[in-house]
């Protein structure tokens, strides 16, 4: 694990199907690509990610999405290593809660054609590791109830699923106490199951 949390971490990974993937922090230079990739998301993916999702990201939403300090607001990108320009195909982020600094809200998005390849798992694994290093022990998320598959898997893996806002479930996952126990922990199972969706 990284000694200096502020230092950008780039990891090379290989998907089950052999595709090489680079996981790297989101940077301000990603602005144009983020806009483009958002436009490529299906309406359903946008809705499941943002609930009431605009068709295009406004400048302001983009500002927010790019406003990361890699400590309280972390965002990482999965890019296809072997393709020209290493296009980003997935993004995961968490934002530390102001009222409860050991808890963060997490979200992950993978472009529709690349869903089901293990990219989500990969991103979440990195995200959890980063969260643990930064003193976070719980992930929460709002997940729309119509996201049946995800909820079923979350539940099976032991996540707490409670009724939230109308239309959404409120998810809570305890992270393992230390990064080295990650692989044996429940959350890892959650991530594995989620990522293999």
């Amino acid at each position: 694990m990284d000694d200096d949390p502020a230092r950008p971490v780039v990891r090379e990974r290989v998907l089950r199907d052999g595709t090489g993937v680079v996981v790297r922090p989101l940077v301000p230079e990603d602005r144009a690509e983020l806009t483009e990739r958002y436009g490529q998301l299906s309406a359903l993916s946008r809705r499941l990610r943002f609930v009431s999702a605009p068709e295009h990201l406004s400048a302001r939403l983009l500002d927010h999405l790019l406003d990361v300090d890699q400590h309280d607001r972390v965002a990482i990108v999965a890019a296809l290593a072997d393709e020209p320009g290493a296009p980003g195909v997935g993004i995961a982020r968490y934002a530390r809660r102001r009222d409860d600094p050991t808890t963060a809200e997490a979200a992950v998005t993978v472009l529709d054609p690349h869903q089901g390849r293990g990219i989500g798992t990969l991103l979440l694994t990195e995200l959890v590791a980063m969260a643990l290093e930064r003193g976070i022990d719980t992930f929460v998320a709002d997940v729309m109830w119509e996201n049946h598959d995800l909820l079923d898997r979350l539940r099976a893996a032991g996540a707490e699923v409670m009724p939230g806002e109308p239309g959404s479930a409120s998810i809570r996952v305890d992270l393992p106490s230390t990064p080295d126990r990650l692989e044996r922990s429940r959350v890892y199972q959650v991530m594995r199951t989620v990522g293999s969706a």
Partner: protein
Amino acid sequence: MARDLVPLIRPLVDGRVGGMSTTNAVGVPLEPLPDDAHLLAPLLEFAAETPDRPIFAVRSGESFTDVSVGDFVARVEAVARGLVAAGVNPGDRVALMAGTRLEWLLMDFAILATGGATVPIYDTSSAEQIQWIVSDSGAVMLLVENDKMLAAADAVRGGMPECREVLAIDHDAEGELVRRGADVDPSVITDRIAALRADDLATVIYTSGTTGRPKGCVLTHRNLRINVRQSGLAVGPALQPDESGMLFLPLAHVLTKGYVLFGIEQRMRCAFATDVTKLAEEFPLARPTVIAAVPRIFEKVFEGARQKAVADGKGKIFDKAAAVATRWSEQRTAGKVSPFVAVQHKVFDKLVYGKIRTAFGGNLRFAFSGGGPLGERLTHFFAGIGVDIYEGYGLTETSPTLTINAPGTWKPGTVGRPVAGTAIRIADDGEILAKGPQVFSGYWKHDAATAESFDDGWFRTGDVGELDADGYLRITGRKKELIVTAAGKNVAPAPLEDRVRAGALVSQAVVIGEGRPFVSALVTVDELAFERWADAHGKAGVTVAESVDDPELRAEVQQAIDAANESVSRAESIREFVILPGELTIESDELTPTLKVRRGTVEKSYAGVIDAIYTR
């Protein structure tokens, strides 16, 4: 109508609770319906027993005129022959779009008498909706009320290929059908009715999903009839001979449909209000003893009475009387009314409560309430003035009643206990699951949605709730992203918001309307798009915040609202909107830290703005 002080709540003997657990509750056992039961039987029995008794009443001049059940049944049979002549066969669907009037039920029963099924369409539906419902259901005929609906249907005629003809009630559809059916032997109808089976299709009622097009709920004769029996068993102890009813909500709503079927089984006379806005005038003319209503009606009566009292300088007395009525009912429910409250209650009964009862015509004893949550306070208030409200719970998919508050099993704030033959279970995630003979078999031609709506034989209501130890159900949330207005209309906000957001200047739209009389929207404006627009309209340098009331900006946003409204009925359409001075923010929790829109917080943040919309 002052009551004695005997507590209404009797020992809990009419219901059994499954093992005292808090995740299961079941109603009393219920005898199944015979396989040849159908919805026409109670009507025909009523007519055979007492042909001269009134079944309905319609407004004429300054009073209501009775329609005898014998005459009504004769008209049903004559129209049914006309439908047969028009080629309506058993199993065919016929769409019916009309306001709440006698002809609605005349056509409905005539359709059933041919062996067909009625597909109701709300009278405020848009052309787009008419086309969808008629074509999806494969209706062979469309019956509408007036020229406006005729025009809307004509505009989309090409999109409903299976619909052979459209007739309008206002253009004497009844006379036309009676003429056409003159050559059809009456025995054809007798035979078709005799051939009806309990599991035959009776109606396909379309309901909004959270996304996509409305889906048709398939309800059989058995579903609807058994539910009438279930409601009747629950409220039986409150019924007296010669009850009288009043119809004013859309018959396309299954609650109203269930109520009128209940009325027929009870041999009750039902008066048709000419319009829901005329209730203040027509309640005293029809003097119903039992009604079915949505929370909005009770709120309106309460607010109306209060405003009148305030205008007369009696606001303080009214508030005091209301507080006493509420306390009296609370104490009665708990088992003992204190002598002090009892005396106050008697005094106010003369001074205040009698006047409020007059608003309902003076004879109203009880009411069914459904379609949305009625506040505990309001329920106690009305009980305190002598009108017991039996709030129930259910969905179109459940014909509708699953649980109900009833005499002896009455707990305001809950939606009561399961009706006979019904089981309610709370799933691990809090979702309310239901089983019973009133639960539908599925959505019309939509197997995927049907499969999703059942879990191991249990119907998934999509609502979240809890059962208390006595088996009373309390609704605490909703899994479906739906808004339920005070009028009981389900509105899917997401498709509306998508359409509004497609407007050039709109960045975000949040549809509001839960428990409100109509649907409204909060709209944010994209700053960059606004700058360009402002430049082009000679408003360079002006900010969004300065322009929220600018008529030109509002007109621009109104176009986006209008586009959204084209896809829905008037009851679901956005009637008002407010342009917010800025975007939704994370700082105010309107967006979650990962930028998900949080409707609940948006509503709280802009509570003042929203209240202003609804008090205009």
